[in-house]
């Protein structure tokens, strides 16, 4: 260990001496995202394009690496009590905010307090409801006491919203973000571009390599691809699936793809008719051909799955067959449930999410032969959040990857899960038992077995149909070096440089 540290120190010293030279060659990276950044305040972020900014400007206490393991970030290490209820994080020393002030334990407390405040409206608030109390042990040590044991607590600090922010600049974060990240804020023109420049005092020596990053907001896919081709752009973040083939076919471009556990789903609200009858839900699930849906919605750039657990994960239940779409069987189930002639239902889709809109139309088409007439209603996203999600009977929704299998599954399928009540109102004591058991599983085998049963039960009870997990693809110019796509869809540019 010591040896490795020394080696790293030597390496970084070497890198450091080379930075001046390298920086010049590295230059500016021009990145496109597909929609506007609503806020630059990490606690309030909700969209993928905003998370791009979050990972350029800020750090968490921990970081989820590209191989999905948990790495130190602002915390150099952490420990927990045997009962998993007391967690202590030891912060790195000498880490400076872009304002020049050193980051300390008080900043961490201020950050979390702010996320917990309801008026902030952070989606990460539910994550930290588990915190009973927290305190600064000294200037660089923070201790959290939890209400109940939780082994995944450190992962929460690698999450998107839990970026550590300076306690003395909380009110101006939305427009003038100050963080500890590899890049510091220069300017933001809503609808047009955000510019960030290299943080010269970044705590990881020798990084970042780029001098400047320009994030351009270009909603039109065709424009993004054209600009990539002509060299006006270097990187198109989260390329829509329909553009991937075109990028692959262009000689100076690469399509960097990585499987994720980001999913879209067909939600069937168990408190509404006719979906309160499990036979109806099962009939819908039976009628849907997941492979076909993956083709229609994602042009094949995704993988059919049972639940949010992706097929790329060891816990994925391989023995369970993927639904192939059997309208005749579905019809029979509907007849048993008292709908021999099918029924008519409105399916709501949020506007502006292309894959979810296509998923909605695919469902409409695939349920036709089963006798279910689906009227697709596209609604603006704010209306969707207010009137549809958790309230309507039948709608399309979707969620980004979560860092662990527990955080990917528990909140949706456990009867007391935080998303459950606001999505499909699913409750099955057997499922609760499996999920609680998995949290305390003593071995990988046991966890794998339990999650295998979770998937089987999720398919059988069908609170919704999760047809696929999405591949995250970045369109990258051949000039760009050192870039890999991250399964959490984060944009990690620390090691990236641009050649000529």
């Amino acid at each position, binding site marked *: 260990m010591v040896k490795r540290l020394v080696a790293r120190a030597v390496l970084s010293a070497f890198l450091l001496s080379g930075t001046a030279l390298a920086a010049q060659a590295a230059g500016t990276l021009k990145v496109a995202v597909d929609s*506007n950044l*609503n*806020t630059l*305040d990490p606690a*309030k972020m*909700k969209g993928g394009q905003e998370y791009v900014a979050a990972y350029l400007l800020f750090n968490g206490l921990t970081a989820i690496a590209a191989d999905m393991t948990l790495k130190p970030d602002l915390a150099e290490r952490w420990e927990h009590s045997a009962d998993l209820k007391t967690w202590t994080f030891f912060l790195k020393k000498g880490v400076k905010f872009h304002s020049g002030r050193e980051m300390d334990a008080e900043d961490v407390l201020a950050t979390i307090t702010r996320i917990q405040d*309801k*008026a902030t*409206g952070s*989606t990460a*608030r*539910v994550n930290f409801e588990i915190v009973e109390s927290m305190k600064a042990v000294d200037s660089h040590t923070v201790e959290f006491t939890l209400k109940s044991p939780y082994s995944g607590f450190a992962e929460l600090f690698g999450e998107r919203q839990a970026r550590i922010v300076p306690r003395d600049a909380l009110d101006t974060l*939305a*427009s003038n973000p100050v963080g500890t990240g590899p890049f510091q804020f220069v300017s933001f*023109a*809503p*609808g*047009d*571009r955000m510019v960030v420049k290299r943080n010269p005092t970044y705590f990881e020596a020798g990084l970042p390599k780029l001098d400047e990053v320009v994030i*351009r*907001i*270009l*909603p*039109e896919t*065709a*424009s*993004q691809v*054209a*600009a990539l*081709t*002509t060299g*006006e752009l270097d990187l198109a973040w989260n390329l829509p699936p329909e553009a991937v083939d075109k990028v692959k076919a262009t000689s100076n471009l690469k399509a960097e793809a990585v499987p994720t556990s980001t999913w879209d789903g067909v939600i069937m609200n168990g408190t509404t008719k006719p979906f309160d009858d499990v036979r109806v839900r099962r009939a819908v699930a039976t009628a849907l051909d997941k492979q076909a849906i993956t083709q229609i919605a994602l042009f094949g750039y995704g993988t059919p799955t049972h639940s949010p657990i992706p097929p790329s994960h060891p816990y994925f239940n391989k023995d369970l067959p993927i639904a192939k779409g059997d309208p005749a069987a579905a019809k029979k189930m509907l007849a048993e449930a008292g709908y021999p002639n099918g029924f008519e239902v409105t399916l709501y889709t949020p*506007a*502006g999410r292309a894959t979810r809109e296509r998923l909605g139309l695919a469902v409409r088409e695939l349920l036709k032969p089963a006798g279910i007439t689906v009227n697709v209603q596209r609604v*603006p*996203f*704010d*209306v*969707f*959040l*207010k*009137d549809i*999600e*958790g309230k309507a009977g039948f709608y399309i929704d979707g969620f980004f990857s979560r860092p662990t299998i527990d955080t990917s599954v528990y909140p949706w399928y456990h009867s007391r899960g*935080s*998303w459950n009540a*606001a*999505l499909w109102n699913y409750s099955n004591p057997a499922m609760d038992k499996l999920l609680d058991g998995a949290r305390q599983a003593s071995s990988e085998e046991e966890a794998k077995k339990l999650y295998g049963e979770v998937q089987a039960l999720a398919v059988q009870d069908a609170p919704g149909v999760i047809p696929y997990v999405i591949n995250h693809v970045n369109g990258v110019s051949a000039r760009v070096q050192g870039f890999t796509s991250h399964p959490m869809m984060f944009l990690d540019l620390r090691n990236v440089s641009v050649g000529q």
Partner: protein
Amino acid sequence: MLLYTLTRLAYLAMVLVVMSILVFLVTQAMPGDVASMIAGQFASKEVIDAITVKLGLDQPLIVQYGRWAAGILQGDLGRSLVLEQPVAPILMEALSRSLVLAVVALAVVTVIGIGAGVLAAVRRGRMADQMVSGVSYLGIAVPDFFWAIVLVLIFGSYLKWLPTGGYAPLADGFVPWASHLVLPVVTLVLMLIARIARLTRSSMIDVLQTNYVKYARAKGLPEKVVIVRHALRNALLPTITVLAIDFGLILGGVVVIETVFSFPGMGRLLLFAIQRHDLPLIQATILIISTAYCLANLAADLLYAFVNPKIRHGMGNA
């Protein structure tokens, strides 16, 4: 003329006040709400209520309107709820970009449209005339966004001559700045040129038949001088008023054009605001676009009245 102008301005102010009330009420009636937008997926009712109170959205409508209107009169357009920034600077930046589009497009339309109209009038019934009519028919036959897509296809995808979307600030250099303007401007020009060319043509034809022009020709003046000095000057007046109206139309039309070209102007700002239910931003954007539209129309009326003194003594709303 001064009195007429002042009367019209006073009247415009009244219309704008009523309009602002209408905008305010309509935006209040929109479904969805900003508190749940800010709170995001699965926020509990208390969270949404807390945000509602924080933003003052629980106050009576009249209070909210009063606050808003008073702010506008002091040059404060409010704060964007979603972006958490004052609306005015964002709006001004977007407006300036849209204005660049509008002004350049209008300049091109003026030069080419009038030129084509004159050419068609002078060569009435001949090839040039037919071509101008044909092209102008094409220009208005399909919606502007269709032309936009065709242009993107030709110049962006196949020829790769021009960027097909986005904006480059002038600080990046003149060429990048200008190259991002070309396609949106050409689209706007295609949309507007037909009317200008046809109008110029018909008023030119009328003027060319007047005794005034016949007299100038009889005097033995060269044809060029007759057309430019005598005929065009008189024929242009109706065209100029239409150009003023067109300026207002462009400001409305940018909503669509800016979408196709990912151009960060007023139009996309408005759509963004509507999608995020950012009421102060929606209200301010609509107010500014509509005010500019009204001013352009007023300019057209005033120009027309200036040319045609009969109007001044007639009704206010000519």
